């Protein structure tokens, strides 16, 4: 669906990857890592210095008109609505530009406006809306059309929790319909919640590209098991762990899931004490990236 063949542009260095159809790709990385450049290249707003990009088998710059029928984008610094028109006028402009039928327009608008709760903003000009309201209306515009590829650059900025949930639901719906979605965010946990593949960019290089599972396994496969017990302290001396803390009758164990499985840890604990409650947590994605980057530097 999306192919980057040894692409060089600005600070992006030799990006070479393929994103299959139906993937939700989370693009993460620190500021200046090349996330926006990556997405602008995929949308056809930029042309690479060298290498090739193909979207649905076509060059997004040379086949600008055809590709723009197939994609829907939302960039932080590209206004979706004109300052002169109201939200509804902007939506009608899109309907006309892309030749949406009345039926398709009404049906899709009804759905996205319901999900994102922006119907009350139809008559407002975007500059009169708050950041969160504006973002809802912009997302509404981005999801208005049924396309093969959606590109979102920091889509959740300014959104409240309900807005973020609505965005997630719409992402899942589009994925179910077979669309591919590229979403960048500085909030790694947020991305991990929706993406089935992750692209980590670091100073323009691909630091990691693969599934969330692989990311955990390959980078820092750390898990944390918190056990509340009654009776004697569990004996786990024969298990390879990274770190252990005990406070009152709560034991916290950090271990590498590549070396020992959570099942083994739980079995061992249950054998040696009476367990009141137990919780196993994976290290957060943000924590993983930070630790990995720090380790590399």
């Amino acid at each position, binding site marked *: 669906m999306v192919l980057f063949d040894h692409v060089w542009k*600005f600070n992006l260095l030799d990006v070479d990857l393929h994103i299959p159809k139906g993937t939700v790709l989370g693009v993460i990385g620190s500021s200046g890592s090349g996330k926006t450049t990556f997405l*602008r290249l995929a*949308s*056809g*707003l*930029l*042309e690479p*210095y060298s290498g090739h990009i193909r979207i649905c088998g076509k060059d997004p*710059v040379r086949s*600008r*008109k*055809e590709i*723009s*029928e197939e*994609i829907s*984008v939302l*960039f932080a*610094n*590209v*206004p*979706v609505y*004109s300052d*002169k*028109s109201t939200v509804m*006028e902007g939506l*009608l*402009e899109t309907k*006309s*530009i*892309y*030749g*949406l*039928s009345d039926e398709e327009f009404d049906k899709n608008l009804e759905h996205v406006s319901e999900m994102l709760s922006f119907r009350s903003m139809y008559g407002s000009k975007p500059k009169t809306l708050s950041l969160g309201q504006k973002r809802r209306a912009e997302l509404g515009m981005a999801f208005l059309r049924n396309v093969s590829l959606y590109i979102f650059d920091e889509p959740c900025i300014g959104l409240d929790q309900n807005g973020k949930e609505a965005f997630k639901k719409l992402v899942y719906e589009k994925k179910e319909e077979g669309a591919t979605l590229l979403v960048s965010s500085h909030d790694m946990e947020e991305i991990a919640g929706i993406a089935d593949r992750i692209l980590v960019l670091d100073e323009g290089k691909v630091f990691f590209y693969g599934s969330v599972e692989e990311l955990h396994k390959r980078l820092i496969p750390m898990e944390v098991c918190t056990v509340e017990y009654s009776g004697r302290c569990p004996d786990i001396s024969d298990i390879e762990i990274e770190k252990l803390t005990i406070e009152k009758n709560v034991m916290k164990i950090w271990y590498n899931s590549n070396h020992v499985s959570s099942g083994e840890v739980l079995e061992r604990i249950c054998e040696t004490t009476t367990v009141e409650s137990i919780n196993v947590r994976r290290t957060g994605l943000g924590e993983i990236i930070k630790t990995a980057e720090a380790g590399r530097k």
Partner: protein
Amino acid sequence: MKSDTLHLSAVYTKMIFRSWFQYRVDAILRSFAVFAREATSIIVVYFTLLKFDSLNGWNIYEMLFLFSLVYVTYGILIIFFTGLRDFGSTVKNGSFDRYILRPRGLLYQLIFANADWFAAVGHGGLGILLFLLSAAKIGVVWTPWRIVYYIFSIIGGVLIQGAIFLFLASLNIYLLETNSLKEVFYWNARKFEGYPISIFHKAIQFCMTFVVPFAFVNYFPAQFILRKEDMSLYPGIFMYLTPVLGIVMYILAYAFWRYSIKFYKSSGN
């Protein structure tokens, strides 16, 4: 699904007129303000020229005829080329990227999404008024051929100025700031435009003919109709060149625009 270009143009125009009717008083005042601002400068010129019998053989009504061509062409120009005139801010605020991401021609979107009908009414209205005031008093018999050539000259004059806007808009892609260039090559040059160029220094005549050819917007087309004596200073063919020059300049500016757009995509903004 097949998109309909005419329908989209209608949507843009409807949007503009809807806001016209929504804020009717505001719209009328805006058009009137433009009309009054420009008319004031003409009134100042008029009273100044009353002190002279003629300026290099041109009487006051003949000069009002020159001014009428300036305003009529500019009135039409800002219907179609406001988006190019204000292209710098369109690039800066990211709206140009929005146009790139849509399945429509870039120029088409710049033209139709930005037409300034309100100012067009002000400028065009003044141009028509000046034409009506002057046309009857310049002693011209309006033969069908003259009417046809007058219309083609207006189209040519619009294209010449449109080409200047398009050229400056393309430069905007390479340079961060082109307002000063626009000031020099369009707005300042335009200040000479209402007068017969023969009254100016040779250097200004050269600039107005060959660098920023405003003389072809009104002076030479007016000479075709008025045949004043000072036309002997210039090749006679200049009287007929406006429509051709308009087309040629626009094609060249368009080619430069196409080339610059490629550069824009390879450089970002």
